[in-house]
Each structure stands twice: as structure tokens, then as C-alpha cells.
């Protein structure tokens, strides 16, 4: 073989390694995920920002799936990459992201313009404002107005016992002509949504996951909540058997939208879908706060997306400008009108045009005031994974609620001990 051939072959191998070097430039990278239609709106908003400020922005389109979005941010941040500069975070990632030192504090405290309960629960850390809510979510009860009326009920249930009994009556009545009809659909599959559903039922009985900074899972209110949820599937049988295997937001929404249920627990996004053309329940749906146990208060788990700036950004000033823009009144209003996103800003909830087009927003605002946050802890995800498995096993009827809670508590304590001391035992 000729020497020159060897050299050429060698160069072919090595050259591509150098091909990816790029000149740094003052352009922002904004990571945002969602459905394609949502991303198109974002693209337009971001383009307008570039025109107004002269700051070039590259939009990093992420998938809809929240775990994949998280993975897409975790890797560059762990590697201390300058991009993406600005990104949206699920409310449950905030504690980890800020405890990892990945977020640049926002310099001016504009929190009084946002929903105070939301900002206080999740956006602050050590006196600094780390992120701002772009979109706020909370669990709601959707109900069929027409069916409640037909069966002689005055309105949506206030307590869980009322919910179960209304669901039972209507389900029995409807089954005659509609064999797949169910009283109450909610998210029980083994995933994050199960934690949200459990937490709001538990909170409405006075329970919760954290008490005075400690995990106290095995307590009467939580047992009561889990026993109630399990009973909905196995005793009252107003929720289908696949609640604990397949019921996630979209499965629940589709079934309700096809007219196959009386009640539905879901996030606010389902409202616009239920009202859309082709929906079997358009005009027949009402929303209400979720029921509670006697002596308790209605509770709704807080969800939503928050905007923050990467600690490793090479263009902090431009990044701040983008955050100011996204959280400004006109942009938040436009997102409410075009995407049906519930804004994090308070003033949008008073805007006459928004209220005219989204009549449920005033009611939502009240529900947000009852919002309960999932534990704001950097290792929340580990905790959630453990709890998901045990709650789901209880819903399957494999272990009694108190045993599931006790086991989850023991396992969570073992894991969190590793994070507290750094040495396992």
C-alpha cells in the first residue's frame, strides 16, 4: 500500500473530529417543548422579540414528553454548556435545578406581579427569585352538567362521598344503553400524575407528604385518601379497573370527551379540548374545585411551567431581556388567548378581553389559591418514583393502603438518608 494512501485514509478518520468547532456568538438559545402547534406560537413570539430588541434567538424545539424535556436540559447543564441560555422547567424540577446551582437568580424581584402563592411555593430559594411562572396548572373536577340535571342533582359534589354516590347513581342509570360508561375518571397509572391525584385527595383530608420538614406518609389522613381512591376502583366500582394501569391525562380526557364518564379529574388544558368541534361533550361540561372530606378543604395540586436562566449562559443580559419579554403582560395575554395557557401574571386575570374569551379563568384563579405543591426538594423525583410504585400497588389491591404507605416511607427514608449524609449505611 502506498504511503500517500495511508495518509489520506488517516486524515479521513481524524478530520471529522475537528469539523464541529464553531465560533461563539452573542445569540440566545431558548429551549422549549410542547405540541407542534404550541411551538409554532412560541416561534412567532420569539421572532417578534428578536425584531424588537435585535437579539438573535435560536429556538431549541423539545418534545412534548416532560421526561424527555428534562433529559434534554439535564445533559447540557451537567456538562456546563453555555447553551441553552433560557429554558422552561416543570414546577417539580425547580428545586433540583436551583439546588444544583444551574439557575442564575433573576436580578429584579418582580414577584408581586405574579400569583403570590405560586411564586412563594416554588420560585424562591435563599431569598433569591430563581424562576417565574409562565403557565400555571392545578387539578380540577370536570363534570357533565346535563347528566347531573337529568338525574336530579343540584350541582357538582362538594365532598368525596357525594362524588362517589352521584357517580354510582348516574353510572348505574347510563349503563343500560352505554356499557362502557364510568362515574369518575382520574390518573392512577404508575407515573407522576398519580402523585398529583393522590396528593390533592390527601390534602383535602388534612394529609400530605411532608410535615414540619419530615416525611410522614403513614398517617390517618393519607390512609383515608388512599383507601378512598382504591375503593373507587374495587368497592364502589365507579372508576374502571384500568385506572391503575393505563389512566393518564390523555386517556382520561379522551374517554370523558367521548361521553363515557360523568366526572373527570384533569388539568385546565382539557377545557378547550372538551369545547372543541367534534367533542361529544361540548357545551355540557362544567368545572369545579375537587371535592374534599368532611372537615377538610378542597385542594388542587400545582403544576405548570416556569422560565429560568442557565448559570452557564454567556449572554446573561440578553437572557434577562428574553425572560422579561416572555413574562410581560402582552405576551402572557397572547399565550392565554392563543394557547389557553393560564398565565402566571395576576393582571392578565383582570383583562376584560381575556375574561370574555376564557370565562372559566376567574374560577381557576380561585382554585390556584388552594393549590398544594408537591414537595419542593432537590431529590423529589427519587421520592416520587418510590411513592408511585407503592401507591400503584395499593390501587391494584395488592397491598392494603397502610402497608403501602409504610413501605414507601421506609424506602424514601433510606434513599433520602443517602442525600443527607452522603454516605449510605
Amino acid at each position: 500500500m502506498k504511503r500517500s494512501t495511508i495518509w489520506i485514509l488517516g486524515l479521513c478518520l481524524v478530520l471529522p473530529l475537528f469539523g464541529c468547532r464553531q465560533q461563539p456568538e452573542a445569540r440566545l438559545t431558548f429551549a422549549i417543548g410542547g405540541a407542534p402547534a404550541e411551538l409554532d406560537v412560541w416561534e412567532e413570539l420569539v421572532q417578534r422579540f428578536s425584531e424588537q430588541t435585535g437579539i438573535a434567538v435560536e429556538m431549541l424545539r423539545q418534545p412534548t414528553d416532560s421526561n424527555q424535556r428534562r433529559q434534554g436540559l439535564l445533559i447540557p447543564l451537567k456538562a456546563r454548556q453555555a447553551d441553552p441560555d433560557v429554558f422552561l422547567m416543570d414546577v417539580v424540577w425547580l428545586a433540583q435545578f436551583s439546588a444544583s446551582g444551574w439557575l442564575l437568580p433573576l436580578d429584579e424581584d418582580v414577584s408581586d406581579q405574579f400569583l403570590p402563592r405560586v411564586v412563594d411555593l416554588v420560585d424562591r430559594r435563599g431569598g433569591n427569585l430563581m424562576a417565574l411562572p409562565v403557565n400555571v396548572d392545578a387539578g380540577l373536577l370536570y363534570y357533565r352538567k346535563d347528566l347531573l340535571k337529568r338525574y336530579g342533582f343540584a350541582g357538582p359534589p362538594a365532598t368525596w362521598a357525594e362524588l362517589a354516590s352521584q357517580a354510582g347513581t348516574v353510572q348505574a342509570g347510563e349503563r343500560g344503553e352505554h356499557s362502557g360508561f364510568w362515574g369518575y375518571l382520574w390518573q392512577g397509572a404508575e407515573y407522576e400524575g398519580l402523585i398529583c391525584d393522590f396528593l390533592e385527595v390527601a390534602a383535602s383530608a388534612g394529609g400530605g407528604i411532608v410535615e414540619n420538614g419530615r416525611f410522614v406518609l403513614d398517617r390517618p389522613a393519607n390512609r383515608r385518601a388512599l383507601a378512598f381512591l382504591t375503593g373507587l376502583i374495587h368497592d364502589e366500582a365507579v372508576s374502571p379497573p384500568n385506572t391503575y394501569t393505563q389512566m393518564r391525562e390523555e386517556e382520561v380526557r379522551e374517554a370523558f370527551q367521548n361521553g363515557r364518564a360523568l366526572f373527570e379529574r384533569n388539568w385546565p388544558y382539557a377545557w378547550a379540548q372538551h369545547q372543541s368541534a367534534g367533542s361529544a361533550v361540548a357545551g355540557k361540561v362544567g368545572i369545579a374545585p375537587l371535592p374534599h372530606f368532611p372537615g377538610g378543604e378542597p385542594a388542587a395540586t400545582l403544576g405548570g411551567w416556569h422560565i429560568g436562566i442557565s448559570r452557564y449562559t454567556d449572554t446573561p443580559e440578553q437572557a434577562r431581556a428574553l425572560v422579561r419579554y416572555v413574562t410581560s403582560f402582552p405576551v402572557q395575554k397572547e399565550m392565554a388567548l392563543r394557547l389557553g395557557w393560564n398565565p402566571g401574571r395576576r393582571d392578565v386575570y383582570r383583562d376584560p378581553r381575556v375574561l370574555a374569551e376564557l370565562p372559566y379563568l376567574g374560577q381557576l384563579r380561585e382554585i390556584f389559591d388552594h393549590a398544594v405543591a408537591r414537595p419542593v426538594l432537590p431529590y423529589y423525583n427519587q421520592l416520587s418514583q418510590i411513592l408511585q410504585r407503592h401507591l400503584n400497588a395499593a390501587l391494584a389491591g395488592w397491598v392494603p393502603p397502610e402497608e403501602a404507605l409504610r413501605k414507601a416511607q421506609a424506602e424514601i427514608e433510606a434513599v433520602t438518608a443517602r442525600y443527607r449524609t452522603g454516605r449510605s449505611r
Partner: protein
Amino acid sequence: MKPAQDSRTALLFLLPLLLTVLIFIAAPVAGTIVESFFRDVTFLPRRFLGVDNFRSLLADRSFHQSVRFTLLFTFASVPLEVALGLIFALVLNRPLPGRGLLRAAVLVPWAIPAAVSGRTFELIYNYSYGLANYLVLTLGVSEAPVNWLGSSYGAFASLVIADAWRTTPFVAIILLAGLSAIPDELYDQATIDGATGLQQFARVTLPLLKPVLTVALLFRTIDALRVFDVAYVITGGGPGGSTNALSLYGYQYFLSGDFGYGSAISVVLFALALILSIFYVRLSGFGRVLT
């Protein structure tokens, strides 16, 4: 060419392969093993832990559950896939009309990405509108729809079936290649000696197929241990964590920002695959065949 020049040329041609193995396989594996001895959590300072991560795994009940599922899944799905694949291969090796077309058709499931076929099976098992319940109700086998994924046995069997559907063709094609390498004369001789079909299979086909069978077993075992897609898509690890495969469990820790613990889980998975591989190679004398 002189021998020295020959081996230099050979090395040059092997270089891309060696580099690829080094950069994309050896380095990440070594990195993961190193990582498994550290506390590498995004929100805590990095610290050397020794074997503490592994000690924690020993006490971790979710980890036990994952190991149990992963091993059971491997021992249930691999024999099933190899047995079915062998039957397919034997049938396809016979002179059938349209054999070429059949052989191509058999490969279709293998060509479908696991996530896609997983989604298809999830729809089949769906409680409200799945094909399985449609059949059960139409044929009158059951009065009410069945929650296929609702019991631990059901969820387990559903995953094994979905996996077998997709990977049996792979085994069949490998074994088919082995079958077609067996000379026809051997069968002719066996027939003259008066051997029955079953005897021919046991004395001629199986021994000569052994090296290829080992390859198929090895590939499938390693793949089954690493099962991710079907469990992620069909059951999401549920119900109650009963189908939470080891790879899924490791992924959950990576996603949570705990890279040390996630790496320790990956190392255990790697060790399991290595042990089983060595076992197969020893058992079959495959190493001798290679040298």
C-alpha cells in the same frame, strides 16, 4: 508483500473498528464503572464513596424487584423466542412455494422499532378498545373486559409476548443461515442409514447448529437483560413496580440527577450480562469454535 507490511496493512484496516470499539464501547463502560464508586448527584458535592452505592443497592427493595423482573423476563422470553425461532427456521428451510417472500415477511416485526411495536401491543391490550378484549367479548370467553395489564402475571406475560413477537424473526433468520450451511449429503447419508426424521434432527441438525444457536442465545440474552422499550411503553414499569426493568430503574436515577447510583445499577446490569455470556460461551465450547 512482505509479512510485516501485511500485518501493518491489516492493522490499518482494523483501525476504524478498534477506534469505534474504544471510543463508543470501552470508554463509556470504563467511565460508568468509575462513576459507580462516586456520589455524583447534581445537587451535592462529588465525593468518592467506595462500594457504598452497591451496598445501598443490596438494601434497596425497588432494586431487588427490578433484578427479579429482569432475570425472570430473560429466562421466560429467551427460551420462548429461540424455540419459536427454531420452528420458523426449520419450516422456512423446506422447499415451500413462495419461500423467498415468506422469509422476507418473517423479518418485518424485527424491522419495526421496539417503541412502535410496543405502542401497538399497548393498543391491543387496552382495556376499553383493545383488540384482545374485543376478541374475548365477541367470542364470549368472558362477560366483562379483562384488565390484561392489571395483575403482575398479566403484565409480565404481556411484555414477554410483545418481546417474542418482535425478536423471534431475528432468531429465525440467524438459525436459517446456520441450517442452510449444513450440507444435504449428511441428511442423505442419514436416510440411507435408516435414521428417522427425529433422529436426523437430534443427531445431525442440532449438533451442527450449536455454534449458531449459541450466537442467537447470546444475542437474545444480552438484549433481554437490557429490556427497556417494551416495558417503558406498555406498562411504564407498573403496576406497583412489578415490571420495572433494571435499565428502566437506572434511567430513573439518571433522570433524577443521581449519576453515581444510576451508574451502579448499570454496572450490575453489565455484570449480569457478562456472567451469562461467559456461561454460554463455556457451555457451548463456542470459544473453541472461534479459535
